[in-house]
């Protein structure tokens, strides 16, 4: 499943002309990786890793903790990238890659 979404993201990243769409595709790829990690630690039928009772099967908390970091960094990355695009738009008054080649 995450493979299909990854393919969509990479295809969009390559073919999109608009820089903002490229950023959106990067977010899609990032979410794919998060999905992949979470599903790799998932055990069908197991509970969340909160040990309220003894001897219950829980999913692996390690990838979840890793991806918590990735989500926050993703937010930072998105905001910085959008700020970069605003700056670029102010210099060149375009966000299309095909028009940026002319500068």
């Amino acid at each position: 499943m995450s493979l299909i979404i990854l393919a969509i993201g990479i295809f969009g990243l390559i073919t999109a002309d608009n820089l903002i769409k490229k950023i959106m595709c990067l977010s899609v790829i990032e979410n794919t990786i998060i999905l992949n990690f979470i599903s790799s630690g998932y055990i069908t039928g197991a509970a969340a890793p909160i040990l309220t009772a003894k001897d219950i099967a829980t999913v692996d908390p390690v990838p979840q903790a890793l991806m918590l970091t990735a989500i926050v960094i993703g937010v930072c990355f998105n905001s910085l990238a959008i700020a970069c695009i605003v700056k670029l738009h102010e210099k060149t008054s375009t966000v299309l890659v095909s028009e940026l080649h002319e500068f």
Partner: protein
Amino acid sequence: MRTHTLRYHVQAAAALLAAAAVLLPVFLIDVPWPAAARDYLEHYGVGDSGAINLVSAVYLGFRFFDTLGETLVLIAAVCGTIGMLTRAGAILPEGFDASGMAHGFTGEGEAPDTPTFTIPVEKPKSHTLRTHLLEVVTGVLGPVVLVFGFYVMLYGHYSPGGGFQGGAVIASGIVFLALGKREEVTSMLTQAPVLYRIESASYLLLVLMTVSGLFAGSGFLGNPFARLFDESAAFIMVLDICIGMIVGTGIGFICIAMVGRKVS
């Protein structure tokens, strides 16, 4: 949308194939996730960190140094975003640009008539998306969302939640308050100086907490409360509060700055 040539499509397909060749083995790999860390956490995680929520135990106990750096990344992103938006000639809401921040940090003199985020109500034409419905709903929901965010933040060691998640909910609450604000109703939480002072103070507290273990005899990143109470989750709770405030104010700051931006 301009028409793409055939060559362009061939290039795109080739790049996609190359990416697939690199990434397919990573996704199709069938080796199960190593269970050593999970087993260790199941046996010792609660006892070592005091948090029943094992995810909290990992990122605030066993891997706290990484979390410390991550909050630093968040603050760097906030600084970079605001700096770049200001340099790009965008008119940020008053107090959210670099000059307002420089003025605020001195703390001297009179505040420039309380820089707040308000979109003028008397000009509805230029803000067609801003309706009275939006104002009323977000204004009422904002405090409720804030309370829920604090709940998620404070119970992170005990239930699903934690500093980052609660911080994100708090950020949406702050944005709701900012969107729902009218001229006569103001909230301290949507003012830029309040936001970044909370953020700075939280980060200072976070750094102090990491160092305080040295003086309490449990080492760097150690739990300073270990000798005071038996309830060792207190340390994780304090860290959760710090991180929640940093994330909430940071993301709220970026959102308000971007929402209120008027292109000159």
